């Protein structure tokens, strides 16, 4: 029942917000809906924590420790993003970058997007997962082009076409999977349920599933933003409104990776080998190295962090591919801390570009003097995302590195190369922005401080100490993914 409430809130929220439009209270209603979603996701999670995995809605929904933790994360970040977007979008509205219709559309689609992601996470059906992923793309496509500038339209078109084509490959993979499953499970919806599939994984035809995985990899890999399928990602992140960049980067990429990992577990179960894992390791490693070098060439602040997202998704993909308890634990933690850190960075980067009316990094200067919260927020965010010790990203990267040293020592130099280059590049780009004198064109601004502070404190806590319930939770998820 909790699941139905969880998903219902977003749908009703989307409808109410479409009706409210540009009225004064719309941002508050948006926050309220997201908060309600978050609260029900916590209830759901406690249920799973106490009673273990469960089926719901006649087998249509399936919750285990892996997807419920992502559902809570999704609901949480969408709530903080809603809080952030209240001030951010009002500023945009006041400065005429967006009109009445734009605001109506923005709020309704924000809720629909969260709905699509939660549906993708909680559904038990591989086909519905695909539908929800496509819905997540469709609901954000027109948000990317919200400002109607030529580059925004171009970015949105690229996003629409590339993700559409990419995800079509995943549908072909789903057809192949159904073809294999139908011979074992029998015809009908039953043959597409994760629970049934995992139960008979060993009896599914390995050749068909290997072929299916290639399509899943290309399809969901496009959505994760893995190199060389990443072309849409930096454009969509830099041209869309900042709250959307934050949820795309912090949440959508995670959900796509979730889909990929589920497929990987199934395929490896069927083939009895580690083939799918190897494919993921290669894609992951390339996605760590290539964006690390691209970071050096960036001029746009949001583009910079979009490339950093590709790199971090590469790290998580690599770790899931590596398999084994330590790497999987690290990957799960990495998804969590990356999502929190990266959305906080986008919040501050969004405010920074509002203060200077540009996203060009060479024009952004003196953030700490101009606005300590934005300046320090960005500084700490970058320290965290680059993998500096007290923060959570360090912990997860360290775990992954340890596992890599043990299982694939010959790949660790490449992994380290990517991480180190990214570290250097990020600091080189961010230092001139945060330090120095306040330039004349900087405008004062009341930033939305709560989301940034909450996210950064959480990342710091996760770096220093992992709460018992969280580590137990991850252990349960790790067991599932073995």
């Amino acid at each position: 029942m909790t699941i139905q409430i969880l998903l219902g809130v977003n749908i009703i929220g989307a409808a109410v917000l479409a009706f409210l439009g540009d009225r004064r209270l719309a941002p508050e209603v948006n926050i309220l809906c997201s908060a309600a979603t978050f609260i029900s996701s916590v209830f759901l999670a406690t249920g799973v924590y106490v009673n273990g995995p469960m089926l719901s809605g006649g087998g249509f929904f399936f919750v285990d420790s892996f997807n419920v933790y992502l559902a809570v994360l999704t609901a949480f970040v969408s709530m903080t993003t809603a809080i952030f977007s209240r001030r951010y979008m009002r500023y945009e509205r006041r400065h005429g970058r967006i009109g009445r219709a734009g605001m109506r559309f923005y709020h309704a689609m924000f809720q629909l997007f969260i709905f699509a992601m939660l549906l993708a996470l909680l559904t038990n059906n591989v086909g519905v997962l695909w539908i929800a992923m496509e819905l997540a793309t469709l609901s954000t496509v027109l948000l990317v082009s919200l400002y109607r500038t030529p580059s925004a339209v171009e970015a949105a078109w690229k996003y629409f076409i590339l993700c559409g084509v990419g995800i079509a490959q995943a549908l072909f993979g789903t057809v192949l999977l159904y073809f294999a499953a139908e011979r074992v499970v029998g015809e009908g919806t039953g043959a597409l349920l994760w629970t049934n599939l995992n139960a008979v994984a060993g009896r599914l035809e390995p050749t068909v599933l290997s072929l299916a995985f290639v399509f899943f990899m290309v399809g969901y890999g496009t959505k994760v933003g893995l190199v060389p399928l990443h072309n849409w990602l930096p454009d969509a992140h830099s041209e869309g409104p900042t709250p959307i960049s934050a949820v795309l980067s912090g949440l959508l990429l995670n959900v796509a990776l979730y889909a990929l990992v589920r497929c990987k577990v199934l395929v490896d179960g069927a083939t009895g080998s580690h083939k799918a894992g190897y494919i993921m390791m290669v894609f992951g490693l390339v996605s760590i190295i290539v964006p690390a070098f691209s970071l050096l060439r960036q001029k746009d602040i949001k583009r910079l962090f979009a490339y950093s997202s590709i790199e971090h998704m590469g790290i998580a993909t690599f770790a899931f591919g590596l398999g084994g308890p330590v790497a999987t634990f690290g990957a799960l933690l990495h998804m969590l801390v990356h999502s929190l850190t990266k959305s906080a960075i986008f919040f501050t980067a969004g405010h920074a570009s509002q203060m200077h009316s540009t996203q060009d990094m060479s024009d952004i200067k003196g953030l700490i003097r101009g606005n300590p919260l934005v300046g320090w927020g960005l500084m700490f965010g970058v320290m965290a995302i680059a993998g500096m010790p007290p923060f959570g990203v360090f912990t997860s990267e360290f775990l992954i590195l340890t596992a890599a040293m043990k299982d694939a020592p010959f790949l660790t130099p490449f992994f380290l190369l990517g991480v180190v280059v990214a570290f250097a590049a990020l600091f080189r780009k961010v230092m001139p922005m945060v330090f120095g004198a306040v330039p004349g064109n900087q405008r004062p601004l009341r930033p939305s401080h709560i989301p940034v502070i909450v996210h950064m404190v959480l990342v710091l806590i996760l770096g220093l100490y992992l709460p018992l319930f969280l580590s137990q939770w991850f252990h349960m998820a790790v067991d599932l993914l073995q």
Partner: protein
Amino acid sequence: MENGFAAQITGVLAALILLTAFALLVQRRIYGLLHIFAWQGLFLSISAAVVGYSTGLRHLYISSALTLALKVFALPYILYVLIHRLKIQKEVEEVVNIPTTMLIGIALVIFSYHLTSPVRELSTLMTRSTLAVALATVMLGLLMMITRRNAVTQIIGFLSLENGLFFAATSATYGMPLVVELGVALDILIAAFIFGIFFFQIRTTFDSLDIKEMEKLKEED
């Protein structure tokens, strides 16, 4: 109907679908593209009905009707209205290197047959040989999206790719579960509205539907 006969009809329809996919690749007139696309949808719909009739699976009739409504009537109609409103009826697109494109297309078909050969050997279904055609249609749709430079044409390529997927679902597996098919149809319908809005956004921002104009977002060195 005897299974052998039904298999032959499905084979013919598969060939026709492949033919239309090739025709889309080289057709330069925008209305011509629309007609070919509608024909492809019709063949698709008939093939689903034939498979449904010969196997006695009721839900395939629903997908057949759905395809007929969506791919033969709704989508071509939406595109027709859009083309009319955008006033690009008479536009003739320049298609470069038709022979090369055709050769690449043929290579893709062979590649698809090769790729699906392990699945074909396993399959006991009467429609099994059509899986390769389905994959080839997907690949040809992809090729069309790469070679064409007009936003409307790209979308038709995308929809043709989607047709290939649907054909894969009916040919390899006798249709996906109904929930999935309805969901996919809904997604395509939403996508249709979105690209409709897009055409106008692109037109007003770039004064043309030629996506060559879109080259602002590139990596600078």
